[in-house]
């Protein structure tokens, strides 16, 4: 290659196609062009698949993530991520610091090397060619100080990628975390194998490592072959490696031969990698940034409605999914974080959020002619995700109904997913199809039938809803008849369950004694519909919500508080879409306010307790501080369980699971949780959700820990700490001398 003009000056640089020769260069350009063609063809096929999905309405998220709030989520998990959070790898480092740092190194190493290659292309293929055409001589900026700075940056960043990759390979190969073993939660009868996926992971890491290694070797051989020009010390890794080769006796001539062989190896590996990107695990490099930018956790709090124009109920074909849901499927890197935290999977149920996403991905690929290299499961009987041509329905076939019914909608999967996948809305969309086909537990069916006739899952008369108030020596105001400050939305369990009515009575007495102006809707209240919606019975949810909204509209109040975190979620987040926007509090927030303001004088209890965050309160709605502050105000020493706050472990009752059979589970999630609590050395398990009282009281018994652990609603701690006890029915009579 002839260097003329500006390049003739002896400047610090390196020859770009050193020793390759004109023929070699032509071959390289032809193969590169073909490879880039394959890359774009594969990428186009992926994009075409997403475009078959419905509208997802995420452009506002994208804008916010890019421009309006480019640092959202960098330090703390919020509903959305941002370009800053993607750059900082915040979602990856969260909950797995070491893997996050390693990924950060690889991520930025790769990006830097990519930018380096682009710069080189700009210089070699554009600036030099254009300048030759225009001014008649080749001009280049790839020399002198620029070359030195370029070299040192690329050499260093490439090395960080090596370090990161080494840790990740070590973790995968030697530490072997359970979440990376790819064992399915649901074992298909005909058997399955994921060995191709495992191999694909190693090919991904291996190719990447080999590209980096050959790059450094190439650099070292070049430095040896060119006789260690002094400025090449700014390629430190290559320099040191070159000195090593020199020390073991590599001659300049041999280095030249090694250089050209390594050059072709490096080029072949790099081009193979580029060509594989759209067909393998490597595609996550392109998709996951996008998926994070359009991610919106709030879609779990207020679930999307069924497809408005669909002629069938539930998802039956690819075009029923939104493009975001389809993108979710391809975004999964199989990191297994959701698999690890999922209460269904932990309990031995057939659901693993990771498997669900991978199965749907493979099904989508199988039905759109998607090509995957070492990124799919094999099954001899071609069932489940290998089903093609509508041979089996998606819900109940590709994904078994038992799997779909196992979800407690606890949202832990969405919470921990480092790539912004929203599993829960997809699961509910699939459940809608099951409900439409009547494919459900008989006990769930009974509950839904009761809810549709009487508005409660207990099958009790709707008019008996406020019967528990007969246990009070005062009458709670009827908010439909007289104005109140707070409307108390009591909820089904706190109203009808014999074991929980005492909680409601205690709360009513405390509030009454504190002079809080509150009322209830009496028989006007229905189940709020949160779990009905998550079961997938959208019509029933609408019916219940509309009934409640009519009752709320007929009542006079300023704000709402609920006992049940599930009711709170739907009232706070889903009723506004139906035209009912109110300020909705949880009773722990209200009690904290009353205690902190001194309205309720309390003494210090001095008890050692642990606290369980209900999924729908902590993870869904971020109410984790109020109950803790309340415990502190009551003088309790809080011993946290390892899984707390937004990382709390589900009791197993959510998403309608409380109405379904759980006898097939190996260990109920609630039992797992009680064992966790026993492990931190406390004997008081404090909860703030009526369902939790039921779930955990049972779990204490079924784990044989009666007497070892006491499950108490936080309201009873407040009651115990009162310095001015509210009058018991008998007290009043004594004092008045009747």
């Amino acid at each position, binding site marked *: 290659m002839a260097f003329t003009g500006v390049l003739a000056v002896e400047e610090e640089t390196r020859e770009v196609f050193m020793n390759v020769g004109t023929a070699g260069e032509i071959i390289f350009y032809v193969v590169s062009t073909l490879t880039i063609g394959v890359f774009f063809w594969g990428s186009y096929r992926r994009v075409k698949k997403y475009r078959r999905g419905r509208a997802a309405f995420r452009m506002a998220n994208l804008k916010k993530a890019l421009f309006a709030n480019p640092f959202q989520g960098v330090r703390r998990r919020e509903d959305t991520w941002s370009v800053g959070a993607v750059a900082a790898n915040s979602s990856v480092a969260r909950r797995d610091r070491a893997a996050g740092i390693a990924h950060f190194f690889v991520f930025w190493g790769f990006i830097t090397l990519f930018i380096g290659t682009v710069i080189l292309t700009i210089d070699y293929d554009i600036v030099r060619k254009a300048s030759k055409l225009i001014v008649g001589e080749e001009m280049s900026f790839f020399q002198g100080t620029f070359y030195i700075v370029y070299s040192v940056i690329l050499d260093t960043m490439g090395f960080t990628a090596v370090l990161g990759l080494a840790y990740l390979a070590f973790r995968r190969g030697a530490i072997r975390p359970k979440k990376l073993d790819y064992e399915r939660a649901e074992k298909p009868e005909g058997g399955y194998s994921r060995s191709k996926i495992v191999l694909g992971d190693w090919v991904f890491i291996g190719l990447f490592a080999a590209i980096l290694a050959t790059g450094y070797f190439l650099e070292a051989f070049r430095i040896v072959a060119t006789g260690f020009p002094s400025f090449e010390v700014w390629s430190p890794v290559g320099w040191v490696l070159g000195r090593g080769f020199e020390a073991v006796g590599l001659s300049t001539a041999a280095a030249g031969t090694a250089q050209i062989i390594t050059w072709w190896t490096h080029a072949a590996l790099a081009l193979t990698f580029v060509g594989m990107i759209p067909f393998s695990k490597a595609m996550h490099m392109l998709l996951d940034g996008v998926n994070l930018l359009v991610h919106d956790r709030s879609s779990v709090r207020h679930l999307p409605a069924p497809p408005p124009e669909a002629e069938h109920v539930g998802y039956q074909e690819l075009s029923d999914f939104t493009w975001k849901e389809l993108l979710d499927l391809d975004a999964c890197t199989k990191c297994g974080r959701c698999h690890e935290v999922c209460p269904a999977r932990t309990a031995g149920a057939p659901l693993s959020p990771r498997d669900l996403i991978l199965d749907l991905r493979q099904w989508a690929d199988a039905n759109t002619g998607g090509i995957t290299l070492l990124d799919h499961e094999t099954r001899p009987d071609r069932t489940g995700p290998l089903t093609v041509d509508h041979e089996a329905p998606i819900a109940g076939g590709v994904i078994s109904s038992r799997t779909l019914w196992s979800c407690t909608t606890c949202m832990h999967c969405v919470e921990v997913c480092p790539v912004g996948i929203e599993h829960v809305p997809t699961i509910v969309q699939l459940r809608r199809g099951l409900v439409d086909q009547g494919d459900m537990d*008989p006990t769930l*069916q009974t509950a*839904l039938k009761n809810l549709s006739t*009487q508005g409660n899952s207990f099958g009790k008369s709707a008019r008996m809803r406020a019967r528990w108030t007969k246990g009070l020596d005062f009458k709670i105001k009827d908010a439909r008849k007289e104005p109140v400050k707070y409307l108390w939305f009591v909820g089904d369990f706190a109203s009808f369950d014999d074991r929980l009515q005492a909680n409601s009575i205690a709360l009513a007495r405390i509030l009454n004694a504190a002079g809080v102006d509150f009322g209830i809707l009496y028989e006007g209240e229905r189940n709020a519909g949160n779990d009905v919606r998550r079961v997938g*019975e959208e019509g029933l949810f609408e019916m219940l919500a509309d009934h409640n909204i009519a009752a709320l509209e007929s009542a006079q109040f300023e704000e709402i508080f609920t006992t049940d975190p599930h009711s709170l979620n739907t009232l706070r987040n889903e009723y506004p879409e139906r035209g009912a926007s109110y300020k909705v509090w949880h009773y722990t927030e209200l009690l904290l306010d009353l205690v902190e303001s001194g309205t309720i004088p309390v003494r210090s209890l001095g008890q050692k307790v642990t606290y369980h965050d209900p999924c729908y309160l902590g993870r869904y709605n971020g109410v984790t501080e109020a109950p803790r502050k309340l415990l502190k105000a009551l003088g309790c020493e809080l011993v946290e369980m390892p899984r707390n706050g937004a990382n709390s472990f589900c009791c197993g009752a959510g998403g309608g699971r409380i109405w379904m059979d759980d006898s097939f589970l190996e260990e109920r999630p609630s039992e797992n949780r009680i064992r966790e609590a026993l492990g931190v050395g406390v004997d008081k398990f404090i909860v703030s959700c009526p369902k939790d009282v039921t779930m955990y009281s049972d779990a204490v018994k079924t784990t044989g820990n009666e007497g070892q652990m006491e499950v108490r609603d936080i309201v009873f701690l407040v009651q115990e700490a009162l310095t001015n006890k509210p009058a018991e029915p008998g007290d009043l009579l004594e004092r008045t001398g009747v």
Partner: protein
Amino acid sequence: MRIVVAMKAVPDLVEEIELTPDETDIDREYLKFVLNEWDDQALEEALLVKDATGAEVVAVGLADDPDIDQALYTAIAKGADGAVMLEGGGADTHSRAAAFAEYLAKEPADLVITGVQAPDDLDGQLAPMLAARLGQRHVSVVVGVEAKDGNVVVRQEFSGGRAHVLELPLPAVIGLQASRETPRYAPITRIRQAMQAGGVRGESVSTDVASSGLSVRRMFRPEQTSHAEMLEGDVDDIADKILELLRERGMVKG
């Protein structure tokens, strides 16, 4: 095959049932009415026959039954091909049978399935009366209906777990005790769609052509009695006592 399911709405027993001031009837004013649970089973069995053979299923109820339209639309939502609401007819089982018979004379069915009983027809009179009026064969206490070569094969249940299987030609009237499968769930969306489509047809029948001739003089609340007996002793004693009780009541042999 055309299958008619004769239906009845009855008070939801989770409600507190009050008597009218003259104590000759229950106070229906504030009661919630639901489909008689045996009729729900009858509908399910008819739909199972439909699933197997493609038979036409029509649900029929009396317009005077409170909330019957809800049950009829639910039937359509579950898969019935149509529903008919009969205007006229009376309240007691005799006149109900007459009303259904009059309708069936106009629009004959190959098979009529109805609940073997109802909370206010514990004798299970409707199916035999209807069969008598139509002059058709009748089997009651049936726990399974299947179509076979133009006939139906039914499984009739007796006490003590015995049953026999009968094959009978059509037309026939069946009093159904239990369907082979749990009655299917009707999603609210489908019920609403059925309501919007307005698939319930009205038909008028004569009123009170054949009342039972009986008049209610007074109704009584059930007496509150307690039959709970706590068994005492160690595990073996209690087990013996339970076994003895089961033998006494003929629930186990030997």
